[in-house]
């Protein structure tokens, strides 16, 4: 049976690699691959190959820290597997694996073996990545020790999580509820901490508070504390797992590796001998994971199946300007991202700031300055990143392009309709920020050091905001129609380094187009602003400038919508899918 699994995994890997290489015949993927590799080079290899890099010495210095905190982190990870999960044991398989393997004459143990085999591929990839990130592979003559060290850690954790999920399910089947299990584990941990504290107080003297910066003293204290029974007994197997990673010589590694492999072997026996029914839960979990992957690749929310209905923002009558229907539709879908919990999370910092300001009772205090700066940052940030975050336009509807193409609407109408919702959402959020900024500017006018923010500039910014949004949102929407293959149109959409490169290119392209299109608007602003400013009408100068810029931006948007509409009319999704 194992040979069949190896065949499946190896052929899948080979075919996937071949398909990716074949794809490089298309220039868009070849160029993407070039930029993707360039990105990888600068991100990883350039740092690793450069001279004078921090090598083993730096990490060697960190070795003692890892030696102290590593077992504790591992312990917390292991404990979490016994406390937090509440569901029954479920192993994630792909939908095809469920369809082929579950009805096949394959034993439960063989299914676990297949899962472990798959996990090993993921672990090996992660090990490579972690080794690259931690800069060991090319900086140390003992790189292989780090690779094996990471492998031991990840394999042990993987097996432990699996075994714990089986054990939890067995406990449930024996009538021990999740809460009872959590209570017992909690009691055990509390007793452990109490005993350790008690024992430590009797035997170890903590460093004086005055020596709070004396790391050496604290290190000694922590080492002694963690070496105190009964905690030391509990951490012992975890130290065994960590030791190969921390080894500094081949001999030391050999001594550490064998016991670590013993821990892995014990875990393996535990997992394989657990006779727990995981199939039903696995089928459900695999379905959910597949839906999430599909939703993610289609550019939708990861909550693949929306559970809550959203209220319509306004009543949509059958007559009237048709693109408003898109605004209506996309506002409904956007509500999913603005649930009460999200809004509360966004409001919490503002509420805290407001409360602090109220408590201080001094208008113009440091908190007003902070709040102003924060609000300003949010506003500026939203001007550049907002269009990437609010995606309820062609980027979301690309998968439903067949439906959009059916509508008896001109291309520009569909484009205008798709742009409306993100423009409205972004503009409302930004106007609220400007309103807040205006309020804070009024409060904080007396504070030295507060960024000077005259109200006329805030109003001018408010006038320009919707036009700016229209323009910046037009660019990614045009890109969707120009390069649909670079966006995710299908569940089985391509992945890989070339796609990363394509996205980078797209981002640069968008920035260049944005830069070019705002030049005329900036010139119009200057034309309106400068004469009034020099004439001494400083109050209205920004308003006149922004009115001119808004006119130019409106013209650019109108032209853009018309041109993108033409693109939409000629858009041939079938050709993209065929390619």
């Amino acid at each position: 049976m194992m040979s069949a699994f190896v065949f499946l995994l190896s052929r899948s890997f080979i075919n996937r690699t071949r398909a990716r290489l074949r794809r490089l015949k298309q220039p868009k993927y070849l160029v993407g691959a070039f930029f993707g590799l360039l990105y990888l080079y600068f991100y990883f290899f350039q740092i690793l190959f450069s001279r004078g890099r921090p090598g083993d010495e730096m990490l060697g210095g960190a070795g003692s820290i890892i030696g102290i905190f590593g077992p504790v982190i591992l312990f917390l990870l292991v404990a979490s597997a016994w406390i937090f999960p509440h569901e029954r044991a479920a192993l994630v398989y792909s939908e095809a694996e469920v369809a082929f393997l579950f009805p096949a004459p394959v034993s439960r143990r063989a299914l676990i073996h297949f899962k472990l085999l798959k996990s090993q591929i993921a672990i090996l990839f992660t090990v490579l990545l972690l080794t690259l990130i931690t800069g060991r592979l090319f900086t140390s003559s003992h790189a292989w020790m780090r690779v094996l060290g990471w492998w031991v850690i990840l394999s042990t954790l993987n097996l432990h999580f699996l075994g714990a999920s089986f054990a939890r399910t067995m406990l449930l089947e024996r009538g021990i509820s999740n809460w009872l299990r959590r209570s017992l584990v909690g009691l055990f941990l509390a007793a452990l901490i109490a005993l350790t504290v008690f024992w430590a107080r009797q035997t170890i003297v903590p460093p004086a508070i005055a020596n709070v910066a004396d790391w050496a003293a604290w290190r000694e204290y922590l080492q002694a504390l963690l070496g105190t029974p009964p905690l030391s007994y509990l951490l012992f197997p975890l130290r065994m797992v960590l030791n190969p990673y921390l080894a500094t010589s081949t001999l030391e590694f050999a001594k550490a590796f064998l016991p670590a492999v013993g821990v892995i072997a014990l875990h393996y026996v535990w997992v394989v001998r657990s006779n727990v029914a995981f199939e039903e839960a696995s089928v459900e979990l695999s379905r959910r994971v597949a839906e999430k992957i599909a939703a993610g690749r289609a550019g939708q929310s990861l909550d693949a199946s929306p559970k809550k209905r959203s209220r319509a923002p306004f009543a949509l009558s059958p007559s009237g300007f048709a693109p408003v229907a898109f605004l209506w539709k996309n506002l409904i879908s956007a509500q999913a991202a603005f649930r009460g919990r999200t809004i509360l999370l966004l409001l919490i910092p503002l509420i805290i700031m407001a409360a602090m300001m109220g408590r201080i009772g001094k208008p113009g205090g440091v908190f007003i300055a902070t709040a102003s700066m924060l609000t300003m940052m949010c506003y500026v940030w939203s001007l550049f990143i907002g269009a990437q975050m609010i995606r309820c336009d062609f980027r979301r509807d690309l998968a439903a392009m067949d439906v959009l193409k059916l509508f008896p609407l001109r291309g520009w109408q569909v484009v205008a309709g798709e742009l409306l919702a993100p423009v409205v959402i972004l503009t409302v959020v930004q106007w609220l920020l400007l309103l807040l900024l205006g309020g804070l500017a009024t409060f904080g006018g007396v504070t030295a050091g507060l960024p000077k923010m005259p109200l006329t500039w805030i109003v001018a910014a408010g006038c320009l905001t919707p036009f700016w949004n229209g323009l910046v949102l037009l660019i990614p929407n045009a890109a969707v129609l120009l390069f649909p293959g670079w966006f995710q149109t299908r569940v089985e959409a391509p992945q890989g380094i070339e796609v990363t490169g394509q996205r980078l290119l797209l981002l640069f392209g968008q920035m260049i187009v944005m830069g070019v299109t705002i030049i005329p608007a900036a010139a119009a602003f200057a034309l309106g602003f400068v004469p009034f400013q020099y004439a001494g009408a400083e109050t209205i100068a920004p308003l006149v400038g922004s009115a001119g810029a808004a006119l130019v931006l409106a013209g650019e948007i109108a032209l853009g919508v018309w041109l993108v509409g033409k693109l939409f009319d000629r858009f041939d999704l079938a050709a993209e899918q065929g390619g």
Partner: protein
Amino acid sequence: MIEVSGLTKLYDQFVAVNDLSLVVRPGEVLGLVGPNGAGKTTTLRCLAGIIPPTRGTIRVCGEDIATNAVAAKRQLAFLSDEPRLFEYLTVEQHLQFVARIYHVADAARLGRELLAELELSDKTSALPAELSRGMKQKLAIACGLLHSPRVIFFDEPLTGLDPLGIRRMKNSIVRRAREGAAIIISSHLLHLVEEICSRVLILKGGRKIADGTLDEIRRTFEQGGGARLEDIFIRATEEPPKVVS
């Protein structure tokens, strides 16, 4: 009325549809059949204006779909086998959205009637994720029929429907044809085509190899009077394609 002349669709070098011409008059139901990869769905997507043809002209109710797409699309509906719905719109909101796009004056009443006909009346506030495969198909059908199209393209219309839904769908197709709609149905269910289609067009490799009433096609392939469409289809598609003008 559907008039197609010299429709050709290429994907790079691959010819998906090759020089296809056909006419479907009001009240006619044309069955589009052919083996997998024959070009049926591509043909329908071209006729519906979803994808542009490489060559040829398509007229829907006299309007050229290439030059006057908006007027042509107002008259047609395309119902595919895979219902494409908006994940965050409820059943009722889907109909409201479509009503605005097509400017359906009496949308509320028509929507109610359609939902009742398709047994979705109790699902008006359900999201697509809460609907079964068949119900999603019914919702897509309701959206397609809301504006009372004069030309309807069905691509495997019965996929996912239960027996009662299938019977109702068949009756609905026949009724709409009687009311003057021109209909094209692409399906592998040959008994369905035999039952409700007034004419049959067989495609193979993107080419038309037969077009006419069942009797005419029987004669073309030298089949007896009692021959079923299935026998004719197998005979027709096994032979090397001979072009029918």
